[in-house]
């Protein structure tokens, strides 16, 4: 069994849990069960992961949190891939001034810490919604992707069969979709897969800071934040979401690494 298999198993399991959350979760994730008796209750048979300080069932929150966290991450990465591939293809194909301008802008964007580029629009947004988070995470996540795609397009452009297709009058759009995109698909998939893990972490960080997913929607980051005041008395609150986070990032990194090995036999 390779890393890829383990990773695919983990990712598959996580996605299944997220999709089936409404069925699997024993309680609605925001339901405060019993504010007198069930605050930060330890894991027990009716509440396998315990409850949080607001007497909500943690298993239900972590399962629903998977939906929110994975959903946001996957959509944000799709936005990033869309923008990054477009900018990269335009830059790499056009060359010249267009290329220089686009890539210098990307360089400048890469020089700013990601957390900063994410926090500023979030701070300016009045009521942060989930689509807004997706757009912000996606909109700040494509810089590296566009550089990668640009480099791949420039390399692919220099291939003799691309020159031959040009020489025989194949329209540029068709050369890009038929000859360039398939050759750059491999590295894009690898980087995007790893990117999902990164964005899950980033979103958790934002939600932990209270800037991400609005309450009472469960996100792993906000669950950790909920558990912070009771970290000593009830470590299972922050611990459960923390473990889910670690497992998710590990799973996507394993898949990304495994795919890289498969798609590029020269990779170390």
């Amino acid at each position, binding site marked *: 069994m390779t890393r890829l298999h383990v990773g695919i198993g983990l990712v598959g399991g996580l996605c299944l849990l997220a999709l089936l959350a409404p069925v699997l979760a024993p309680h609605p994730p925001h339901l405060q069960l019993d504010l007198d008796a069930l605050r930060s209750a330890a894991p027990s048979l009716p509440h396998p992961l315990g409850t949080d300080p607001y007497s909500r069932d943690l298993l239900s929150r972590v399962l629903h949190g998977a939906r929110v966290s994975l959903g946001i991450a996957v959509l944000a990465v799709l936005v990033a891939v869309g923008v990054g591939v477009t900018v990269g293809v335009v830059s790499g194909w056009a060359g010249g001034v267009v290329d220089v301008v686009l890539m210098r802008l990307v360089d400048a964007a890469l020089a700013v810490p990601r957390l900063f580029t994410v926090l500023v629009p979030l701070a300016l947004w009045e009521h942060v919604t989930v689509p807004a988070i997706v757009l912000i995470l996606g909109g700040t996540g494509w810089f590296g992707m566009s550089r990668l795609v640009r480099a791949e397009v420039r390399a692919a452009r220099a291939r003799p069969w691309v020159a031959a297709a040009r*020489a025989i009058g194949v329209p540029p759009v068709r050369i890009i979709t038929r000859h360039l995109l398939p050759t750059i698909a491999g590295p894009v998939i690898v980087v995007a897969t790893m990117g999902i893990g990164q964005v899950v972490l980033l979103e958790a960080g934002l939600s932990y800071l209270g800037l991400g997913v609005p309450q009472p929607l469960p996100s792993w980051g906000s669950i950790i934040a909920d558990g912070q005041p009771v970290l000593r008395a009830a470590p299972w609150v922050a611990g459960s979401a923390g473990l889910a986070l670690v497992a998710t990032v590990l799973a996507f990194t394993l898949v990304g690494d495994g795919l890289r090995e498969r798609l590029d036999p020269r990779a170390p």
Partner: protein
Amino acid sequence: MTSLLELEHLSVTFPTRAGPARAVEDVSLAIAPGETVALVGESGCGKTVTALSVLRLLPESATLGPESRIRFDGRDVLALGREELRRLRGGAVGMVFQEPGASLNPVLTIGAHLVETIQAHDAVDRATARARARELLATVGLRDPDRMVARYPHELSGGMQQRAYLAMALAARPRLLIADEPTTALDVTTQAQILALLADLTGRLGMAMLLITHNLGIAAAVADRVAVMYAGRIVEVAPRAALFAHPAHPYTRGLLQAAPRLDGPTRPTPAIPGAVPSATAWPEGCRFRPRCAHAWDRCNSEPTLAATAPDHTARCWLVTEPRGGTA
């Protein structure tokens, strides 16, 4: 009859670290409809650059001299818009390259390549394009076109790949085929078959051909006229028979002598001494002077193309001032 392709005063310069490389200078060449012209010369003499400039396929860094004119079928190629240029490429002018394997995308079938090319030039549906693809494969002598369309490039031999690419170049019934060393990467028997095919196709389809080669034997086999290039310039142009019977330029003579012969006694092949100079530093005066056995004072200034016969010109002082040399 008017010319199909006319190159006039074509000059191409590339910027390099060692200064501008004048890869092609003042090349004028005309090809009549249906005529096959061979452009012959050593590596680095500018023949490929000349060929690429016809369809404006030169790298972006290349600059054309202000005098340069390229006319195809009466139209100014240098003034064509992007879409007109794309239609010309693979449309009225087909092109084949040296490495047939590299010219085909390894992940697309031969059929996909052909359909793509056909649809790039004609608004036809897939079924029509597929039917025409099979016809084209038959035209270039590939047996069993029905199975060939489903094959991938790596499943084909070099000769079959070149035939398949040639089928693509012929997809829109071009009036001119530019063939850049089409047989160099092939073994000798396949080479002969491809040359025979090219000669047959030009005759059958009434197509003109600009054949780029370093091999005089190939020029002798298929060309109506031969242009010899040296150091970025055309040094001699003549009908095939005249060129091989009475080569006027010492470089042409050197090339002919350097070709090993099968008839006649075995002898050491006389090579032309030296090598082609660098395009960043062509010699002053006649560019062949440093390697020429006949060089004399006159050669310090550059000769022009002078006629030795009505259709035979050579760029050598020996043509106009034959008594000056020692030959």
